[in-house]
């Protein structure tokens, strides 16, 4: 029935199957079988050494319409990549990536759209994640709407969309633009118009509870059971305490501990055991205890020696630090830092034991480092967004560069989140 093919390098077969296209109005054209021999091609490298065996049974006909699903619990090596798509911001998305997957084509597990520099938050206990995105009715034109979209982690489909009425923060992505309370009862959403506030969203009822003003203070760093700490324009902190319904109970100021002009700190902390670690532009590490009802400033220490400071070492990057589950902190360092280089990244990753406030390792970023993240588990991998906007995978124990991940839909993957 089938043309016998002895030499796969000169394969040419004449076929004609039946003519059917549902909904197609084109007049089916009867084809008359034997075609010109105009093109003889070698077969692909993939198949060039295969000798066809026509005695094999034919492949089964496959069903259409099949859609994949994901496990409810994501493996430790999976991460959420915030692909902000800086030069085409309607195309932003979260990419769910297995950074330990050896096979290139299996890196991507799925995606969720995130329009116009949307914000993202992830749940550790609920089988869902949260995207806050905005749309104009006509792309760049027409009325704007801000939407909180609750996604099902298994199907990657929206469960519910909630219209929000306070202008959400739209800035380069960061890990703390939306955060969850310790018990994951409430989601806290940063607003910025540029008046600053945050919206409390109840994850059980899936309804907005309230929006609470934080004049001059930004971002919702979760604190204790039911509190939110924000960082203020005068170098102080503001903790908002909620009641059990998510309504404001009280607000508390923590005295200024830095100068926003002279000694600025990054507003992108890492967390270890209830302490928020906020590096300064110049290389001090500020500790803020976020484990109780009100934030408490715990002092600072230096990431760098005097010699290193003189040499020009500074921390820097878009997502410049992360912590692993063993309590180590990883931070990008730039040997040629200056005021202006703070978001540009660096050439090394330094690893700190924050308990002893000592550096325990450092390794070179193989291709520059703009952002850093660490996977979950006892044997974490360090994932670095490099200068070419690909991801370099490094073993933090040995400091050894493992490989570069590219062509996973990445254009500007500047924030990575642990997946649960």
């Amino acid at each position, binding site marked *: *029935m*089938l043309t*016998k*093919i002895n030499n796969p390098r000169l394969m*040419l*077969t*004449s*076929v*004609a*199957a*039946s003519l*059917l*296209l*549902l909904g*197609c109005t*084109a007049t089916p054209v009867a084809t*008359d079988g*034997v*075609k010109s021999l*105009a*093109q003889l*091609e*070698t*077969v*692909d490298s*993939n*198949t060039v050494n*295969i000798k*066809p065996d*026509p*005695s*094999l049974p*034919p*492949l*089964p*006909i*496959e*069903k*259409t*319409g*099949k*859609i*994949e*699903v994901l496990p409810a619990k994501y493996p430790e090596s999976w991460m959420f990549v915030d692909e902000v798509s800086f030069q085409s911001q309607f*195309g932003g*998305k979260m990419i*769910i990536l297995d950074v330990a997957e050896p096979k*290139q084509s299996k890196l*991507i597990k*799925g*995606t*969720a*759209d995130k329009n116009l520099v949307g914000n993202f938050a992830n749940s550790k206990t609920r089988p869902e994640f949260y995207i806050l995105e905005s749309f104009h009715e006509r792309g760049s034109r027409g009325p704007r709407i801000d939407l909180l979209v609750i*996604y099902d982690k*298994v199907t*990657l*489909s929206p469960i519910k969309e909630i219209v929000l009425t306070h202008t959400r923060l739209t800035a380069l992505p960061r890990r703390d633009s939306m955060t969850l309370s310790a018990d994951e009862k409430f989601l806290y959403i940063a607003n910025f118009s540029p008046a600053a506030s945050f919206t409390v969203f109840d994850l059980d009822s899936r309804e907005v509870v309230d929006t609470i003003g934080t004049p001059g203070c930004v971002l919702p760093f979760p604190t204790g059971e039911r509190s939110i700490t924000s960082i203020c324009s005068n170098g102080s902190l503001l903790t908002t305490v909620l009641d059990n319904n998510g309504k404001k109970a009280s607000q508390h100021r923590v005295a200024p501990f830095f100068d926003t002009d002279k000694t600025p700190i990054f507003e992108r902390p890492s967390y270890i055991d209830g302490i928020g670690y906020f590096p300064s532009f110049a290389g001090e590490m500020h500790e803020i205890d976020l484990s109780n009802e009100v934030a408490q400033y715990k002092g600072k220490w230096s990431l760098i020696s005097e010699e290193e400071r003189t040499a020009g070492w500074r921390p820097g990057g878009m997502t410049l630090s992360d912590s692993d589950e063993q309590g180590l902190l990883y931070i990008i360092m730039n040997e040629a830092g200056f005021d202006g280089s703070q978001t540009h990244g660096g050439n090394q990753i330094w690893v700190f034991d924050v308990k002893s406030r000592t550096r325990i390792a450092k390794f070179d970023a193989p291709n520059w480092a703009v952002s850093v993240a660490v996977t979950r588990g006892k044997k974490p991998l360090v994932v670095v967004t490099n200068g070419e906007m690909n991801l370099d995978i490094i073993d933090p124990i040995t400091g050894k560069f493992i490989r570069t991940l590219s*062509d996973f*839909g990445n*254009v500007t993957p500047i924030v990575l989140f642990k997946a649960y």
Partner: protein
Amino acid sequence: MKFLDQLFEKKARSLAQTSGRRGLLKGLGAALVGASSIPLLPVARASEGPSMPKEFGDEGSCDYWRYCAVDGFLCACCGGSTNSCPPGTEMSPITWIGTCTNPVDGRNYVISYNDCCGKTQCNSCLCQRDEGDRPLYRSDKSNDVNWCLGASSSVYHCSTAIVVGIAFEK
């Protein structure tokens, strides 16, 4: 779009050197087949033979045999597979088809390249082979069309390559 390979792989000018290399099977009077019409297709079904049907190759590679007429992002790289869509997308019921030869059994199969729709472009594993591709006036074989027109979302995400029949010898 083959010329886009370069863009994605950032290898300039490789096109001119490689564009003649591909071509497992030419455009040989293949069929007008919509995936949703499979039950009506007078094609050979998988037999219940003693040995198992076989394929060979990396379904994440553009060289894989099923992709002979493809033009798009391979769903096998996007959280889907050759015959399934990534999570949260929707498979278009209508599409274009090609006829590709399975190098393992030497048979020609009708491949339906149903698009997966409803999320921003996957933007991984761009593959443009175009063997047997025809312009818009032969819409059944036209891969320039956004076939998500048949889905509830017209946003193209990636392309599958589904075995929907055996192409009969003429």
